[in-house]
């Protein structure tokens, strides 16, 4: 494949953004370049026809991670420039980075040119998987076990965030209180955008069974909708001890695990008989989306706030 001018431009910009993000001591600048870097990476995925990866990178790599970093930056107070690292640490990082880069470059040169992979096997079994999108077939069926564990990793991250709350704040609402000017821009957007976001998020989940899309990407869009309405001060986040909230958080992984265990009656684990594979996978995607969206919202909001004095 001969690289086009566009590809070369993207690659150069990627390198420049990465450099700008890791050099310099201005925290805000580093975050902004990190977000731009994520968006450029998702363009790069698009160029090699990995649309699902591009969607995930844009939604989670650039979008959600960016919001998390900005949120942390907002809570850091006056620490808007980073401390100077000791020269030895910079040197070690440089040598290690250059060494790994060179090793990977060398390794990639030696890879089989036709590219090894499982595309043929996946396509051969696609019909038996119950869904039309090969990526969804891999994520929910062929390697559904990985996805099941990943959905629990996300929950563990949330418990980890909650666990650094202040001792007195337990049971309070997460994050800081948001006030927006009544009728101002933020509040108008907070009323207007969620309607569109809901439709897009639901569509991405639904489309995932036959084309690019799925629970993680759709869940991120739905989470953005919820965060916007909270930022606009239109609704307040629920307390971390709320019962429905907790059941809703575990519902997705719980239903997935439950369905997986049903297979044990037939001597298998996480098995989808072809006749019911499509409805079962769509149902799991829907509950998983709800739990993922909720988990992401709470991850962005952060640990429960201090109890009011």
């Amino acid at each position, binding site marked *: 494949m001969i690289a086009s001018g566009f590809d070369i431009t993207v690659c150069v910009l990627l390198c420049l953004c990465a450099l700008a993000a890791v050099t310099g001591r201005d925290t805000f600048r580093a975050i902004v370049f990190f977000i731009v870097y994520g968006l450029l990476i998702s363009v790069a995925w698009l160029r090699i026809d990995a649309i699902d990866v591009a969607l995930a990178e844009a939604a989670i790599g650039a979008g959600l991670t960016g919001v998390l970093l900005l949120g942390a930056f907002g809570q850091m107070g006056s620490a808007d420039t980073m401390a100077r690292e000791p020269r030895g640490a910079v040197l070690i990082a440089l040598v290690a980075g250059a060494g*790994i880069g060179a090793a990977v470059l060398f390794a990639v040169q*030696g890879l089989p040119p036709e590219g090894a992979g499982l595309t043929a096997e996946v396509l051969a*079994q696609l019909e038996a998987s119950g869904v039309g999108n090969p990526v969804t077939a891999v994520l929910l*069926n*062929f390697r559904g076990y990985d996805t099941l*564990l990943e959905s629990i990793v996300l929950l*563990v991250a949330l418990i980890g965030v*909650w666990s650094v709350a202040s001792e007195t704040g*337990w049971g309070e609402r997460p994050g800081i209180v948001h006030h927006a000017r009544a009728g101002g821009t933020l509040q108008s957007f907070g009323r207007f955008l969620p309607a569109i976001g809901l439709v897009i998020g639901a569509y991405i989940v639904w489309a995932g069974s036959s084309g690019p899309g799925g629970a993680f990407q759709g869940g991120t869009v739905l989470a953005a909708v919820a965060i916007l309405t909270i930022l606009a001060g239109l609704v307040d986040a629920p307390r971390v001890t709320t019962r429905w909230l907790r059941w809703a958080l575990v519902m997705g*992984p719980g239903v997935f695990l439950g369905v997986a265990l049903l297979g044990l009656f037939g001597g298998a684990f996480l098995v989808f008989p072809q006749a019911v594979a499509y409805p079962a996978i769509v149902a799991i995607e829907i509950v998983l989306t709800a739990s993922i969206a909720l988990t992401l919202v709470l991850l962005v909001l952060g640990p429960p706030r201090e109890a009011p004095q």
Partner: protein
Amino acid sequence: MVHPALLVAPIAAPLLAALLAIAFPRGAVAAALSAVGVALVASLVLVVEVARTGTGAALAIGGWPPPLGIALEADGLSAMFLLAASTIGLGVLVVAQGPFGWTGRETRKGYSFWPLALCLLAALNAIFLSRDFFNFYVGLELLSLSAVALVALDGKREAIEAALRYLMFALVGSLLYLLGAALLYAQYGTLDIGLIAASAETNGPTLVAAGLMTAGLAAKTALFPLHAWLPSAHTGAPAVASAMLSALVPKASFFILVRVWFDALPGQAGPGLTLVLGTMGAVAIVYGSILALLQERLKLIIAYSTVAQLGYLFLVFPLAGGDSTAQPWFAGAWTGGMVHAVSHGLAKAAMFLCAGAMMAAAGGDKLSDVRGIVAKMPLATFAFALAAVTLMGLPPSGGFLAKYLMLTAAFASGAWVWGAVVLAGGLLAALYLYRPLASLFAPADPDRTFTSVPLRTELVPLALALVAVLLGVASQFPYDILQVGRSVAAEAGLE
């Protein structure tokens, strides 16, 4: 052929209990104890079945055999590690009822501990049963995130700093590992250990992939000089969490390392690699021991002891490598390393649980705080001493069996340098453990009083320390189990 439920239960039962603990915290303790109990019974049956039939048990998840799907498999090594994880896990959770149990009111620590501990145990079991390099990565993520959160659980500034440092090491380790796994996939079109082994060849991309994975896993196993995160993390965590972190968590990344070099890429480790890993292990033994000798706090002594004891694991690489004249001794060295992993886990968990109980009784863990505690806590002191016997490698403990196997291999094959390191390590362990033991057994000041602690906080470490000794008494059983499904390279050599 064993029922698939036996392979699934050690993973699914703790995960189900973790979800339940998140949604319904009042039931967390009951759910956790019964789930880990189920996992323990399943592991026990697996061990017996593997020993009886002499073959491993396997399950293709979803009915999709590799390369398309993921396979779970329990060979002798998996079964032993599963049993150790569930035994230690159950002991830890029984003790954790004290500091983290339901008290009628939900607290930050009491709520968070149970899902984190359960996910940590599920992740360990998932790794011990997996045969797939990407699935290993997912297991490592679940394991590391739970472990980091447990380190921060005390909420003190130092604990949170230690947790952040741990997170950085763990994430860099994960990324290096993932990079290596991606290169292997690009090379062989599969992530399954068995399929990679069938088509593996010695070439540039394969060695770079394995090198990256090794570097990442070494950081997660706290191999010298990548150990900097361990002492503060294992000291900052609550003692019950430290028991799992020190005894079990580094063994998971070591287990994957063994799978990489012995199972997936047998015969591909050059003399350079075995020498580097062995040297770093040897330095870890000496360095960790000396630092343990210099500490004044019980938990820090135990944590630096972990740095030293993890070093022995890496001596497996030079001892089971080497040239073909040494070949008859490879299998013994490999088995010795694996027995060491299990017996160190049991002894280290016992020690941290003892330290936790003594801290609760004495109000601190400086050697001067716990001086003379034997009069108040004879059982815990005895447990500490038994665990020390295993760590020093004295007969008849599991630690002795491990060191005996390694020493025989080293001296018989002429690798006397490694043998000398093993011997020196045992002597150093006796030295750094003498100080806490002398302090515990010293006569206490007549007016010194200790708070009473629940009996179970003394009985559980005693039971774990006894199992560690038993491993050496009934040495034939662990030895035979480990031979089931043992990789070809453990016999034919790494190089």
